[in-house]
């Protein structure tokens, strides 16, 4: 998986490219552990990532909880058909902000 991050003040945007699976989800976790300090708005761009397995959902849920505790927000943007189905089937479409 390729991750590209851009910080603008207290806003962090991460573009994901490839598959977020058991092997690659820790890469996003590691990047966020490094970059998330002080961030109030996190935008995760899934334009080039439409495969998110439960390992990816774990990272997203943990990050969502972290952002909520810090009174920040997390948005998922450019969500594709497959990922949207996964979010719907797991009820996470009602939890995350999806655009």
């Amino acid at each position, binding site marked *: 998986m390729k991750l590209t991050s851009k910080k603008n003040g207290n806003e962090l945007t991460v573009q994901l490219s490839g598959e977020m699976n058991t092997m690659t989800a820790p890469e996003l976790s590691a990047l966020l552990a490094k970059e998330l300090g002080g961030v109030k708005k996190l935008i995760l761009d899934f334009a080039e990532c439409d*495969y998110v397995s*439960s390992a990816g959902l774990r990272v997203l849920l943990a990050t969502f909880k972290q952002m909520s505790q810090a009174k920040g927000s997390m948005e998922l943007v450019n969500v594709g058909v497959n990922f949207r189905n996964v979010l719907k089937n797991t009820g996470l479409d009602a939890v995350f902000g999806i655009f």
Partner: protein
Amino acid sequence: MGEESFLRIPARLEGMDLILSFVSYLLDAHGCTPQARTQLRMAVEELYVNVTLYAYPSGEEGWAEIRGCVENGTATFRLIDGGVPFNPLEKEDPDIMLSGEERGIGGLGIYMVKTMVDEVEYEYRDGCNQLLLKRKI
């Protein structure tokens, strides 16, 4: 039953790419839709992860085998291991109505499998765990 292909490897997490390549190779050879391809890959991923984590006692090197075929527009995969008898499908489904704050961060994998395929069955046969997946492609 159509001609069945199979792959047997050590049951390690690093084998995931091989297992998923096997799934893709078989599906691509039969003109699978992108959505069915993704969902079958994800279902196999979730089940294979379980095998690498729980099938064998810590420190014991085990094996995992995947068998697959496509017939009449339906793909069938069987994931087999020689580990301790364990039916992951008996795991209670998570409460998907909970808010983000109320949720644990795990426990979604097996539930996702059930939502992504048409049939999933477990059987303990000949000393092996066998999980059967079927989905129209």
